[in-house]
């Protein structure tokens, strides 16, 4: 656990210096929200699509893809700059490495989530009303699950050729019903009424977080072996 924190702190420090992941993810989430703004401008202006419906879907598409980009970078960087072996040589459990990476990924991903939530409000003149906090909380919960499975799958894909393409192929089907569908529903519910209608969805996302955490903790060892 201590090692996990050390690794996460290192990742964040490197990230704050280079801003490689952050800047890419920032632009990415900005562009996705803008793409929705332009793509759906007729539908929104004519009222054919309600803003809460659009917001919940757009936000989660944005969260998911930005997270995939970030998690991919976090391992690809260690691999490409040949620093991964240095971590593997350290007297640290692989599962701590998993937790450390997941933690640093979570912090970066959650930060970008917050930006996307703000972008959406900005470009759609959307008022979260009193529900901004609920939306943020749901983003955090969903991101935890996303990062727990994503970190494992990113480590899997980093072993392969064509890994940029492979990560979404491997990850999106896994998060579709564990994260995206329930989170979109819960987020929409939160925006139109209250987070209270979504107990089932929240429980489901949390349960998957637990399942992925256990699987990642147990199997990460095998993924990074040379």
């Amino acid at each position, binding site marked *: 656990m201590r090692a996990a924190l050390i690794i996460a702190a290192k990742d964040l*420090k*490197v990230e704050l210096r280079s801003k490689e992941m952050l800047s890419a993810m920032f632009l990415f989430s900005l562009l996705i929200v803008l793409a929705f703004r332009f793509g759906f401008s007729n539908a929104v202006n004519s009222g054919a699509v309600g803003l809460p419906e659009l917001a919940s879907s757009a936000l989660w598409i944005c969260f998911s893809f930005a997270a995939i980009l970030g998690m991919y970078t976090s391992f690809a960087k260690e691999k490409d700059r040949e620093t991964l*072996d240095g971590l593997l*040589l350290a007297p640290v459990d692989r599962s701590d490495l998993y937790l450390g990476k997941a933690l640093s990924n979570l912090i970066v991903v959650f930060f970008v989530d917050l930006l996307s939530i703000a972008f959406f409000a900005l470009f759609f003149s959307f008022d979260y009303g009193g529900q901004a906090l609920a939306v943020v909380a749901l983003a955090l919960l969903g991101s935890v699950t996303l990062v727990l499975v994503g970190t494992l799958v990113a480590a899997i894909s980093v072993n392969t050729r064509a890994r940029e393409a492979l990560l979404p192929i491997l990850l999106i089907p896994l998060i579709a019903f564990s994260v995206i569908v329930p989170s979109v529903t819960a987020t929409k519910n939160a925006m139109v009424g209250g987070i209270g209608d979504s107990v089932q969805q929240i429980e489901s996302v949390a349960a998957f977080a637990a399942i992925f955490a256990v699987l990642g903790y147990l199997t990460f060892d095998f993924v990074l072996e*040379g």
Partner: protein
Amino acid sequence: MIDAMTVTKRFGRRIVLNGLDLKIGDGEIIALMGPNGAGKTTLLRIMSTLAEPTRGDVLLDGKSVYDDPVISRRSIGVVGHSTYTYDDLTALENLRFFWSLYGMPRKEFEAAGKALLQRVGLSHRMNDRVAVFSKGMRQRLAIARAILHSPKVLLLDEPFSSLDEKGNEVLAQILAEERSRGCSILIVTHDVQRISSLADRAEVLVRGKIERSFDRASIARGELEAGYRASSDGGIV
């Protein structure tokens, strides 16, 4: 003391190491030579727990390093093909990160980190980001990184490459100091000249096996040079 016992490594159907034995006693420096693709780096990775052997075992002071690799890694230092350092951190920050990762007492780092950089001759650049370092400077930092936890075993993969004259002297000095501490040292190299003055023994690895071994006396007689050339003529295996 580290002891590779009948280590076999296969990558799919290709047998890279074939029942290889290699023993390095305390305070010994062993040179491992051999043509490109002979399996030297592969052996080093196996001895440093980065890869598991297909068959055979590696014993560290009589216990398999794979029993509890996490504990074993505390006693192993590695200078690899790459430096394992982060470009966006300074030299000192890099060392601090690995210092804490190796579970060394945080308070002692202030003094120890500077002393390490002093030893490899980087103390005047300790607050520069590694991104701006030259190749040789990075290699020096990699050496500091490898010895910061005073390992019992030091494994170096072509450490002389990219080091200047001064750097080589620094490395030789460090190796001598580590040896006198009782560290078992394995150096993979193609540099016969350089290793002749350092090594207690030189082993030549060809086709996954130790083909020839030269002791100190025969190295001194210059037999290593001729013998190594003959093995290398076998070409890439």
